[in-house]
């Protein structure tokens, strides 16, 4: 039922803004992500109704409320299946998933891993703040072992998931990392992530000033370091090439994976951001469905004509009845 607007007008970030109040804490990194998303969608020329922003549950999971588009707030950890359902049923929509690190790497990890296998053409933006914001600061799977944020009664007893490595092992075909206070770079990466044909994963380092007093704006800015230099640098500035293209030989692919692995493990005084992986050699799930269902793109599930004007079913099952017919 997607109906094209009659005279597609030029969209701006404003078109994606809404007036309802934002209820994040002052200084929350989420603000930067929201703003970048609005800018990115505008830059990509999407109309609000062509976009579904699908969210998990958490502070991060409120992002879609602050955005003019189809906003789908799902269940904790379940963003990916819902986003997948929307995209597969209406392949014309631009689907962007947003959610927290607890949501995505904890309760939602089975979907994370298995979505990688499908490579549906959509984008996952993970708000990596290393805590469970909305439930008051418990350790998220992204918090390293032994660290103790101010919200924890004791040092973290569980280890850390390296979200980039997990995305790679799961088969995401585009993997990037950004920092929520560098909105310009964030927009650049979001645009690339959304443009990527396949499942893209953008890990956004997102300070939570309320609960996470370790990974703060100051810390990322390197204020604690001798040189006082920002920790985050841009991989692409270094000439890091993330592209795996079709037909690349195994050795080259291994090199890419090794480079990826090395960069994905870099953390501390220098933290890489940018595009880590851009694998163009894998078909999207939509392409795979099209192979089995030739009418998939011309008559996607959301628009199939299932009834005639009198409300009679249009399905003609006679060939199947024939197959089952015995007399």
């Amino acid at each position: 039922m997607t109906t094209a607007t009659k005279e597609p007008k030029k969209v701006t970030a404003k078109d994606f803004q809404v007036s309802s109040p934002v209820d994040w804490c002052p200084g929350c990194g989420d603000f930067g992500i929201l703003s970048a998303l609005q800018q990115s969608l505008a830059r990509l020329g999407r109309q609000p109704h062509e976009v579904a922003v699908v969210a998990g549950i958490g502070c991060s999971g409120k992002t879609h409320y602050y955005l003019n588009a189809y906003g789908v707030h799902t269940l904790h950890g379940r963003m990916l299946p819902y986003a997948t359902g929307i995209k597969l049923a209406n392949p014309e929509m631009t689907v962007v998933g947003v959610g927290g690190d607890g949501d995505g790497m904890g309760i939602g990890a089975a979907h994370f891993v298995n979505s990688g296998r499908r490579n549906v053409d959509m984008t996952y933006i993970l708000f990596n703040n290393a805590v469970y914001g909305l439930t008051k600061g418990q350790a998220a799977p992204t918090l390293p072992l032994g660290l103790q944020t101010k919200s924890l009664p004791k040092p973290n007893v569980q280890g850390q998931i390296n979200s980039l490595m997990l995305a790679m092992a799961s088969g995401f075909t585009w993997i990037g990392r950004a920092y929520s206070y560098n909105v310009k770079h964030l927009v650049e990466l979001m645009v690339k992530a959304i443009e990527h044909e396949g499942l893209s994963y953008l890990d956004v380092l997102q300070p939570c000033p309320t609960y996470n007093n370790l990974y703060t704006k100051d810390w990322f800015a390197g204020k604690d370091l001798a040189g006082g230099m920002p920790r985050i640098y841009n991989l692409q500035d270094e000439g890091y090439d993330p592209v795996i293209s079709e037909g690349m030989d195994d050795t080259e692919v291994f090199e890419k994976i090794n480079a990826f692995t090395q960069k994905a493990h870099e953390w501390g005084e220098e933290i890489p951001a940018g595009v880590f992986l851009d694998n163009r050699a894998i078909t999207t799930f939509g392409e795979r469905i099209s192979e089995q269902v030739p009418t998939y793109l011309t008559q996607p599930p959301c628009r199939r004509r299932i009834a005639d004007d009198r409300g009679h079913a249009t399905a003609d099952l006679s060939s199947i009845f024939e197959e089952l017919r015995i007399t």
Partner: protein
Amino acid sequence: MGLGRRLNNVDDTQHQLAWRVGGPQGSGVDSAAGIFSRACALGGLNVLGRREYYSNIMGRHSYYDVRVSDAEITCHRDRVDLLTTFEAESLARHFISVVEGGAIVFSEKDEDTPLDKITYLDPRAARDLTAMLEDSDLPASTAGTLEYARGHGVNTFRIDFDAVVETLAERLGAPQAIAARTLNTLAVAVSCALVGYEVEYVHEALAKTWPGRQKIIDMNVSAVSLAYEIVRDSLDTSGFDIELHATRSRESRIFLNGSQAVALGKMAGGLAFQSYYPISPATDESVFLEAHQNFTTKDGGSGAVVVVQTEDEISAFGMAAAASLTGARSSTATSGPGLALMVEGMGWAGINEAPIVVTLYQRGGPSTGLPTRSEQGDLNLALYGGSGDFPRIVLASSDLTESFYDAAQAFNYAERYQTPVVHLIDKALSSQTQTVPPFDMDPVRIERGSIADPERDNPDGGDFPRFRVTESGVSPRSLLGTAGLTHWTTGGEHTEVGRVTEDPVVREQQMEKRMRKLDLAASEIPLAEKLQVYGNPEAAFTLLSWGSNKGGILEAMDMLKVDGVEARLLQVRLMSPFPREELSELIESAAPLVAVESSFSAQLAQALRQHTGRACEHLVLKYNGRPMSARELYGAFKEILGGAAERRVVLRNPYE
């Protein structure tokens, strides 16, 4: 149920037979049953098959009951005329279930196997059988079982299948291993020959089984001829006078099982998106859909169902629920453990008014329970799964035809009332194979409910009030992707445009709006879709039931009628909204009111009491995972009518 107590409901014309074939899983029991069923159907007979198998891939015991008749069949028969066995275990398990005058076909190699050498025979069964045989001074072996059967008027026919295969190999000039592939056919053919069934239909069945594969067909045709020869020439069938003959009336029939009927119903109803996670006994439906996902449409176009295997049931539900928001008719299929994982999503669909259909194939519970056996123990989960209150439609089918139409209608309910629908099937029904007339597509109507039009429903643009508070409770819904209708959806309580809210007034309005849809559904859905009355509508003896039990009850009612007892059956089809008014009226004159359910707790009777206050005087229950037979039900009803029955009458049969 005591041994030897055999209520003889043998069908007594020459167009009726109850046949059982048993053997290890993976050995071809299913395909033997398929050939036999086809042969009978081709001869113009109605066929009903029942399949029992273990949660195992190879080796454990499975069996298939095929009942054929020129009359309508609604239920399997648990006392069979003819038992064909592939191994010793089948002899041990089923010798007791053959009627007097019936016959057992067995392989020479299985003639004298000690019970304690039968690998998979349950220790309990082995123990009880041993005791029983010892009581009759018989050895604890298949020889003992055969002797016992003979002592009870059953014919036993020994065939040296190895030798037969050897002969066949010689005739065909083929290696023995190849010839051995016809074993199933041989077994079927021996059975057919024994009852004098017209061989041409067996031949035709082979052609239907392997369409286009002439070499295989030819080989099997030879096997059939050989089998008929052997029966004619080498068996002494003098004491055996059961016959089966074709009627040759060839009305148009399709042959399928319950899960296929549901799949077809879904396709008829416009299913466009199905996500699923494999689980017995639900998988078959999705596999069938996948195999038939592309089809034509009457307007010359083509239809298709996108079928996605997910990583778990949570995902299966979520994908379909989300897909339903785009306007695609969406569904998933699962069984109890899967639904347990979906109930969080059910609440989400409820509060977001998402029209998703869940087909629930009930199996034995609790937990992993009896994965391949039947039960009706998930009604409560279907009715109450999920936190908090939200409306849902719950319906249950009782036979293949109903399954087809209900599966289509479920989407209409889902979209008209914009709420999740659970369509209950039970394993007995889903695995029941049957010949039925091809489903008539004409009665299948598509009602999409209230879909918003941007110009009509949101003329000023801006956030679309998807959850507008209306008198009926139904609000025009926007399909994701439509220009001019953007809004939010959320599992949190929300305002009309779908923003999370904790405002107490908006909360009350939305809660009440949602729940009003149940009243609307209750008032709109016609009586016939809520319940069906069978038998004598004036009868005081009233049975209340649902799902696959219907078949057995109808036959048992026929048996009662022969005894001069009038009875009626209230078959409940809609459990939510519960047909409170309608049932209250109907049960007023019930005396006694007897619930018949395949569960320990009689969940429909619970619901009845909750909604009407009326408790059933008797509960006829079965919860060993096997379907009820007419014989068992008849016995229970007689017991109740005789005044001797306790409140709970449990149907037990240790030989299933």
